[in-house]
């Protein structure tokens, strides 16, 4: 299944790259959202492999987590990444909002000289 998921990661990156190469600010933001999904999934695949139906919880009986359970480390990393990415996206959205007010355009090419604003 990792093979299929790898292909999914690839399509996420390809879609993100295409959207980020567009001139529209909105498409740029959507592209960054896809990019973060792709990165998270890429991290997800880098653990000890994907496991179905066995979250990294401690077994009550033994007091330790079964080694067959999913890798907790990359899950912790991804969790942090999701939250930080949320803060980042919110910031970019505010920036785009201000830029739209200042320039009155969705076109990045109209923002070449924004250092004057």
């Amino acid at each position, binding site marked *: 299944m990792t093979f299929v998921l790898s292909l999914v990661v690839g399509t996420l990156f390809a879609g993100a790259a295409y959207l980020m190469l567009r001139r529209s600010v909105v*498409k740029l933001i959507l592209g960054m959202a896809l990019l973060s999904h792709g990165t998270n999934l*890429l991290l997800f695949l880098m653990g000890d492999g994907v496991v179905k139906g066995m979250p990294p919880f401690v077994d009550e009986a033994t007091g330790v987590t079964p080694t067959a359970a999913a890798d907790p480390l990359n899950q912790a990393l991804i969790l942090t990444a999701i939250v930080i990415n949320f803060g980042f*996206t919110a910031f970019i959205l505010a920036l785009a909002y201000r830029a739209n007010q200042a320039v009155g355009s969705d076109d990045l090419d109209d923002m070449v000289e924004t250092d004057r604003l």
Partner: protein
Amino acid sequence: MLVLIVLTALLMAPLGLFARHESRPVVGWILALIPLALFVTISALAPTVLAGGRVEQAIPWVPRMGLELRFALDGLSLLFALLVSGIGTLIVLYTAYYLAGDPGMGRFYLTLFIFMGAMLGLVLADNVLTMFMFWELTSVSSYLLVGYKHDYPSARRGAQMGLLITVGGGLALLVGLVLLGNAAGSYTISEILAAGEQIKASPLYTPAMLLIFAGCFTKSAQFPFHFWLPNAMQAPTPASAYLHSATMVKAGVYLLARLHPTLSDTPLWLYTLTIVGMTTMLIGAVTANRRDDIKGLLAYSTISKLGTMVLLAGMGGPEAPAALVATILAHALYKGALFMLAGAVDHEAGTRSLSQLGGLRRAMPWTAALAILSSLSMAGVPILFGFVAKEEQLYAAVDNGLPPGFDILVLIAVVTSAVFGVLYSWRLVSGVFFGPRGSGMKEHVHEAPAGMLLGPALLTTLSVVLPLGLLPATATLLQPAVNAISNEGAKISLYLLPSQIGLPLILSMTALLIGAVLTRFEPQIVAAPSPLPPWLNGDRIYDAAVDGVLRGATIFTRTLQNGKLRSYMTWAVLTLVVVVAPPLALFGFGGLALPTLDGVEPFEFVSALLIPIGIVATLNARSRLGGIIAASFVGLMVAFIFVIYSAPDLALTQLLVEILTTVFLVLLFAVMPASFERLSSPSERSRDGLIAVVAGMVIAGVAFAASSVTQVPNISAAFRTESQSQGFGDNVVNVILVDFRGFDTLGEIVVLFTALLGIYAMLRLRPVADPTRDDEETPLQPTLPEVAALLGNGQAGQPAPREREAPVAGKGH
């Protein structure tokens, strides 16, 4: 002791700044005590060296890199250290008169002392890396000294040229020294010399030597890098006399002499140094005769003598080391004096041009007398030390270690350069001090102040007195230096009159005679065309190279940094592909198992495939709302993937974040255009599509390779076992976040808070729209209330204009 000597000069450098407030020459007398003390201290160490000993001192610096501040004093270091500190004393004194009343004198002294410390460090270093550091420091201080009169473009250009060429050579030198150190297994110079045979047998010998030669040739102004030295004559004369004649430019010669004992007897060394040295010697000697500026003339004669020294270091033969040492001393004595006297003439007469000077012997009798004596020494006229050194050169050239045919060529070259030496010495003396009174001089020319003549007088006296009975003593003093250059037991024996009339004396006299005859043809020789073809003009090549680099940088910047985000993106994505794809294809898939479908259920496929479908929908969305919905769908499907593969925390977080993001997007799009315009042309779209697909394939490959490699044992195991015992939690992911890696989570919160501050600043704080502002021309001017807010004083400004933007700020919240 040696460390102290180097550090004293460097640490005393700020004392030079006192000259800023005290412009009378007395400050020079006081400051001269520093190099004088160094000179005395080094002299006090001389008996040890003369007795065949060696003074060493080492301070570990970065032991793991073989870097240590290791200093050693042997005969060669002693000679150079005495020259640096001795002539340095005279130069410091001379500067006080030459720059009297100049407000920048303090700065000049500061740099001069830094140079002195660097030069002492260079010649005393016994570790190649230590030596390199001081080597570069001399380049930098030379840059500052040449650019002293930085108001003049020519001074800036000269300084920059010297810096770029010597530091460029310095880079080559560094690589060469590291290769040498690797071949020898040590960075200590004495150990490198001890491993000479091993280095010569190593394949690193040739590249190391060629790179070191590049460093030495640029530093010592050898052809084809010689052109920076005449341009460095923009420096104030004390700096020219000190750096660009007596000391710094000899650093390259010093290093060659240093490596000479065990690394020299190879064809590479022999031919490279002989050919380059010979060419430089002849070009310098010929060009010196075509110069009108007396400092230019002296600069080219210095180039010629540096060429002679490199030739002597290269050509081999039993007498070459002795001749090299004698030449170094003789040149420092007469050229140091002549530069200082040229400065005195410039200072008093107001010009350095030979065509504007003349007849100064009456106005400046002392200067004239000293200049005549030193010029006679430069010309190699008997009973002066220059003659003794020239005898040694000819003796070495007659008995050189070159193959037949080539040896005659070198001999002829040495004699030729001696002939031209007579000619330019004569030009200097007759042009400045004899003939009719010059046209371009000041109205009333006076003799230079006594303090300015003290240094040249001392050096000239040595040139005169040494041959008169002091030659055996001089030879004794120079013998340790010869020992350091030659390991074949070469002996230095200086003589004024040889016991029998041999070939060297005949050649020497012949050169004097031809030179004297040629003085009759001075105008023709001055007007003769340059010996170099016009395209081989170093100045012009340098300018073209600098211009080319700047133009290339401009084109490069305009292409890569054109201010458009998507072109940066394109380059970034392409770089990713180019850097990652080849190693991935070569090494990424070794031993990978083919993908199997064991235990994969259909719903997994379906949920995974829904993501690409969502992406395609996002790409094709024509309305903003469609785009948002499609992108949110992708996010939700990613959350579903987390659900399937045992990551409930991730799924929960992703779900919440996705919902919030969607809400924000919808709010944002309230102000954005309702639908996407087609902004790019079809060709752009297909090009970007191609880039995106290739990048996606590379990333998919990386993901597959990464997910399939055998894991080295990682820290996940520890987290699994210690989650309950150490963190008292059953959900390992949660325990990691709030306990094991709690500080990371704290950092994450800080990031979120910072983003929040930024968002608040963007949405709430904003410049007031100014109706008078012209959008195209004037930059943003803060209004009164804003200035008040920035200054932290809310009462100072007018409160009224704030209300104007209130409706705008409220919109969208």
